[in-house]
């Protein structure tokens, strides 16, 4: 497929018009070769132009709303009426400070961080163990047990949120970090088990044999021999779990009520409900909630796309 997947620097590969010229600098060509090369390049670009036009339009559609909000976050309340793309007279970074302190986003951020770190590390560890058993061991009832985990991937949160609230209340866990962490781990291990089982099952048989020859028991074989090999799958899982947990809304909405425990999406939702008129401040909050996702997404884009497409496809 002609996708140029080997190019690691998409921005450079976008620098279309200079492509022919830079090739020329590297390897000077005779005049005729230069012109014919230029002409064929030009023809190719003219033919590809409509495609790029459509792509750019859709790219702008996807990105512009976020850019508008990031820009709005730097304006004063009076400036927002004066044109969406007009730059602010003074860049009000203070809006972010205000959102962080006055609007309590510092609390929300801490809360999100605690929940995400706990959920992702616990879920990854538990999924690694159970995925290992399903992927590499033979035992009675492995089929039905695995189907049980698959049910957990399919089940919507709405199917269990009501009794979950009352059960946790009876245990005295409502409105604690535990209420945000434990159910999220319970959901995450379903996908995690499924995902890691696939990774372990795909390992070459020689690897397990080598571990056996070395006299490893199953525990050592997992940590010393197989873990290094399935590390890419683990990384993908971590990235996916991070984003799912970071973005989760319904659990937090139902299971915590104190302001200090609100996660970022929940805090943002309440904040915008109360201060809908202070558009720059709400925008600053939204930008702060979005930023970690964007950073993680661009750092781990490949894992992301592999996880989303692989996970979705395998789930059928």
């Amino acid at each position, binding site marked *: 497929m002609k996708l140029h997947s080997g190019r690691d620097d998409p921005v450079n590969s976008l620098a279309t018009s200079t492509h022919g010229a830079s090739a020329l600098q590297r390897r000077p060509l005779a005049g005729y070769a230069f012109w014919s090369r230029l002409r064929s390049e030009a023809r190719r670009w003219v033919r590809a132009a409509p495609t790029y036009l459509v792509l750019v339009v859709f790219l702008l559609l996807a990105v512009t709303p976020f850019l508008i909000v990031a820009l709005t976050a730097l304006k004063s309340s009076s400036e927002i009426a004066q044109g969406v793309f007009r730059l602010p007279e003074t860049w009000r970074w203070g809006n972010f400070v205000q959102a962080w302190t006055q609007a309590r986003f510092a609390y929300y951020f801490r809360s999100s961080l605690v929940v995400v770190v706990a959920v992702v590390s616990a879920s990854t560890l538990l999924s690694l163990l159970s995925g290992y058993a399903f992927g590499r061991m033979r*035992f009675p009832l492995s089929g039905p047990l695995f189907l049980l985990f698959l049910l957990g991937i399919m089940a919507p949160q709405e199917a269990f*949120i*009501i009794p979950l609230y009352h059960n946790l209340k009876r245990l005295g866990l409502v409105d604690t970090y535990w209420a945000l962490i434990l159910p999220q781990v319970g959901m995450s291990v379903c996908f995690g088990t499924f995902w890691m089982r696939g990774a372990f099952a795909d390992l070459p048989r020689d690897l397990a044999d080598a571990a056996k020859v070395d006299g490893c028991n199953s525990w050592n074989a997992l940590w010393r021999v197989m873990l290094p090999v399935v590390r890419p799958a683990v990384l993908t899982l971590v990235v996916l779990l991070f984003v799912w947990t970071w973005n989760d809304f319904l659990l937090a909405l139902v299971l915590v009520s104190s302001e200090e425990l609100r996660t970022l999406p929940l805090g943002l939702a309440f904040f915008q409900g109360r201060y809908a008129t202070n558009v720059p401040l709400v925008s600053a909050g939204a930008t702060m909630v979005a930023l970690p996702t964007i950073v993680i997404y661009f750092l781990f884009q490949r894992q992301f796309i592999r996880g989303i497409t692989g996970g979705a496809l*395998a789930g059928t």
Partner: protein
Amino acid sequence: MSRLARAPHAHRKSYEPGYRPWVAYLYILPALLIYAGFVLWPILDTVRYSFYEWDGFSQPVFAGLANYLGLLGDQVLHIALRNNFLFIAFYTAFPILLALFLTAMLTRREIRGLSFFRAGLFIPYVMSMVVVGVVWRWIYNPAFGPLNQLLKALGLAAWARPWLGDFTLALPAVGVVGTWVQYGFCLVLFVAGVQRIDEALYDAAKIDGADEFQQFRHVTLPGLRSEISVALVTTLISALRIFDLVFVTTRGGPGNQTMVASLWLYRNAFQINRVGYAAAIAVVLTVIIMLVSYAVLSIRLRATSES
């Protein structure tokens, strides 16, 4: 073929001669316990709750099928379910058609920076729906929102609306956001799928004199069958259980114009304390979701076995 379709036992498992199968259970136990305690058990409880009348505080009273019978006469629920099905157009139909169109444009030709574009188009999908909701509330803002400002700048001031507060336009306005979020996901899925199609099929089609459209129709589309059904299932589920976006943008309003099943469930369970009744809604919603997923997947399986 998907991983799951292979039976677990189809793999040759490696295990030591003196292998003790209970070791496997020890590996599974921690995950299973936490899943069973916080997801599975509450799912069963939901079914149990749905047969009781309960306000969440006092003693529950067994009510038989009363909650389910109540669903039949619940006008708000009917509006909510109708809206869920309207959202399917925005969450499922439009994104898949749009993504197929873009897939036809993008694949089968040399495009520099495809991964860059793909990354950008996928951003809305990875973003928290609360952020998306806040962003679009501002875009739709009646007074100074970018959309109305744009219309005024284009001399179309008469078209400016309080989008999310408008009785007829609120649902499409929220729906468009759904389309905006979902098509990137479908596109990523389809582009990855095209890369898996055997190049020889295209060569054969070309030899038969198929033009680009025919190649798309007869090679790409059938080749994307499993990706399309995955996109169908996941977007249908998103449409049927839409909550965050509606909660942040309209809270079901104006009136009940954008009320959806999950939001009505939430109101009943946690605001007006009809817990048993809310559980009945949850059961019905879950059954609908499971049936729809099952229907799509079984159609796909039949199509695969025929070919």
